[in-house]
């Protein structure tokens, strides 16, 4: 009898031990799988970041000429800059000034650059080689020279050391982004231009310098080396102002109403389901909606950040409502009960007690929603924001692009050798903005977080 009990005990122990080993194995396997998933994810993110950084960071430095430019009075034949005379109306002065500007534009500024290059090369360039010579400096620099002169006409007759960007192809050549051993027929630059570029680099006239053009210039097609993000940045900024101005008040107030005041009935259930569904609608659908309503029906202008902002507001609203509701729900009912118990009205309860406590959650949700809107591209393509715009928009109604759309546009540029790096640089700028927004969200949450 006792043996049988002992046997049964043994048997039971063995079963337990067996199952225990199995459970441990399972647990270990699960842990390892989880770790593997995290490691895979991190590796992929690391590869993404490293490849973007490797390609993009060099684009912040560009081949730049440091040359003495002589504002030759024989080339710059222009009467003095008009001053407003007493008794002259503003309109008449503007007219006269704009005529002067047009004449300033007709001056052959390119000649000044040609002369400076000849000086630096120390050789006389024959007319038939002019084309090779002009391939060195990016074509936008002649307008930069004009603008500099218009600002300060006293430069006439003076020699100034100026920084000028090399053309995109020279930049590619100097940086070695094109195979230098390719035969002439496969090179973008003529043999003469390449020799000159190498010679000038050796003399230190061409240096690889940090370039602000990426940040300060607008997009450019005729002068690729000076294409920048300023216009797209302002466009994105205007859109974000519209998004924050509309979606945060609308989203937060509707969430407060739905969570704290609305009766629980079929209608509010339906609204809740709809909001949850809206959050899952693909963004391109909002673009189509925006194109037909804001542009087709309300007749708002094409390519305007205002329209982009409105479309992105529609997209961000559900995100903010959901985040705000979740944040309100996480406030313990005891807070409300205590407030109501000492005689506060419901509005007082919400605005004096619940909302301040829910604020960190609401802020985090809103900032993440806005950050998502900042990176959105698809709906903007449908409202004409993928156009080539060479102006910095002054108002939300001016035509403009946005940062992610600019990345898309550069990605499509024909000159791959130059724009692959430029695109990555633009991605770095956008990612930097996103990361700082997310950091802001985390900081705000930490700062206002309450524990109970």
């Amino acid at each position: 009898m006792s043996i049988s009990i002992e046997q049964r005990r043994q048997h039971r122990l063995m079963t337990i031990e067996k199952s225990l080993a199995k459970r441990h194995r399972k647990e270990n396997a699960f842990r390892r799988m989880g770790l593997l998933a995290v490691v895979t994810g991190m590796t992929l993110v690391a590869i993404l970041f490293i490849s973007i950084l490797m390609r993009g960071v060099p684009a912040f430095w560009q081949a730049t000429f440091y040359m003495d430019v002589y504002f030759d009075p024989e080339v710059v034949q222009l009467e003095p800059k008009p001053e407003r005379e007493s008794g002259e109306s503003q309109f008449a002065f503007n007219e006269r000034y704009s005529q002067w500007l047009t004449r300033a534009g007709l001056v052959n500024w390119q000649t000044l650059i040609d002369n400076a290059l000849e000086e630096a090369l120390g050789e006389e360039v024959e007319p038939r080689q002019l084309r090779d010579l002009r391939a060195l400096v990016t074509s936008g620099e002649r307008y930069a020279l004009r603008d500099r002169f218009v600002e300060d006409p006293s430069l006439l007759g003076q020699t100034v050391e100026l920084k000028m960007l090399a053309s995109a192809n020279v930049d590619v050549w100097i940086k070695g982004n094109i195979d230098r051993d390719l035969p002439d027929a496969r090179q973008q630059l003529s043999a003469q231009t390449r020799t000159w570029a190498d010679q000038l680099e050796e003399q230190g006239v061409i240096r690889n310098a940090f370039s602000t053009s990426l940040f300060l210039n607008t997009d450019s097609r005729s002068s690729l080396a000076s294409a920048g993000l300023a216009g797209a940045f302002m466009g994105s900024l205007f859109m974000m102002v519209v998004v924050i101005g509309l979606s945060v008040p609308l989203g937060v107030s509707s969430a407060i109403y739905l969570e704290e005041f609305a009766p629980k009935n079929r209608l509010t259930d339906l609204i809740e389901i709809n909001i949850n569904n809206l959050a899952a609608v693909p963004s391109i659908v909002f673009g189509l909606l925006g194109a037909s309503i804001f542009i087709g029906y309300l007749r708002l202008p094409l390519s305007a950040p205002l329209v982009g902002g409105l479309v992105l507001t529609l997209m961000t609203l559900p995100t903010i409502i959901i985040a705000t509701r979740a944040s309100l729900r996480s406030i313990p009912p005891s807070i409300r009960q205590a407030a109501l118990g000492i005689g506060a009205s419901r509005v007082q309860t919400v605005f004096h007690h619940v909302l301040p406590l829910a604020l960190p959650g609401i802020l985090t949700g809103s900032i993440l929603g806005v950050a998502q809107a900042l990176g959105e591209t698809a709906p903007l393509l449908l409202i004409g924001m993928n156009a080539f715009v060479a102006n910095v928009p002054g108002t939300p109604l001016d035509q403009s692009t946005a940062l992610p759309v600019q990345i898309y546009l550069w990605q499509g540029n024909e000159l791959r050798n130059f724009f692959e790096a430029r695109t990555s640089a633009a991605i770095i700028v956008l990612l930097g903005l996103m990361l700082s927004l997310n950091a802001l969200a985390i900081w705000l949450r930490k700062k206002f977080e309450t524990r109970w």
Partner: protein
Amino acid sequence: MKKQMLSVAVVAGLAASVSTAAMARDTIQIAGSSTVLPFASIVAEEFGNTYSEFNTPVVGSGGSSGGLRQFCQGVGENTIDIANASRQIRSGEIESCGENGVNEILEVKFGYDGIVFASRLDRSEFALKPEHVFKAAAAQLPQDGELVDNPYTRWSEIDSSLPDQEIVLVIPASNHGTREVFEEKVIHPGCETVAEVEDDACNNLRGDGRIVEIAGDYTETLARLDAQEDAVGVFGLSFYDQNRDRLQVATVDGVTPSLETIGSGEYPVSRPLFFYVKGEHLDVIPGLAEYTEFFLNEMISGYGSPLEDAGLIPMDEEERAEALEQFQSRTVATAE
């Protein structure tokens, strides 16, 4: 009180921004062909830099058909002023324009562009004929007297002079004007050499994955060539020109495409480029007429101009004068 003021200010700001939308637009708005886009953007930039009194025009893409559809949406400040097209406007498009009140369609021809076949530099060279391309692309081909599904899988099976390489042809989708030129100048002449295929069936291309249609721009075609290394892609000459370090171009009928051979008409696959100006907007949008005339200026689109540097094949003196005269006399395009 302060909060109220703030909300009043926000509402007033929004109202003001909506009401200014009704004010006149002072920037030219352009959309259309992605082949014309680089040229139009350069002109727009030079225009903005030259004329201090006008804004730099805004140039969008969307393909020739997409641009003309936007163009025909109607007259008004939230419709575009100019549609770029790498093909001539169709009579159906003129009709749909007319239905929406766009009657003054001014056609401006500004130069030529070549369409080239190019493959990766590390692959074999191609010497194509329209016939080869048709045989590689057709849905059905005659075999022993009856039409069967296209049997060819390698170029060398079509013609022994062609390399022994998988057939993959990357062509523009039908939203591009380039597609029409490709069909008209390559597929149709090739089709004529094969008597058994009826004219209507010429445009039926095989659907077994050997023909890849690209709705985006040429960079997408280039990316395709990186993924499928055997592929032959259809590009604009200017695009090929900017990427000569990775692409090699195929000859067509023994002629290598270049500015010279296309300008002289020797290379068969070329087409004129156009843009269409909305006559109704000429007096409304400042600078529209000036932009058009600036575009046709010898300094901008002639020999030695920035557009030629970007790969445009310029028109000769006579054609340029004719195009300008046609615009200045406001000759309206009509549906035949």
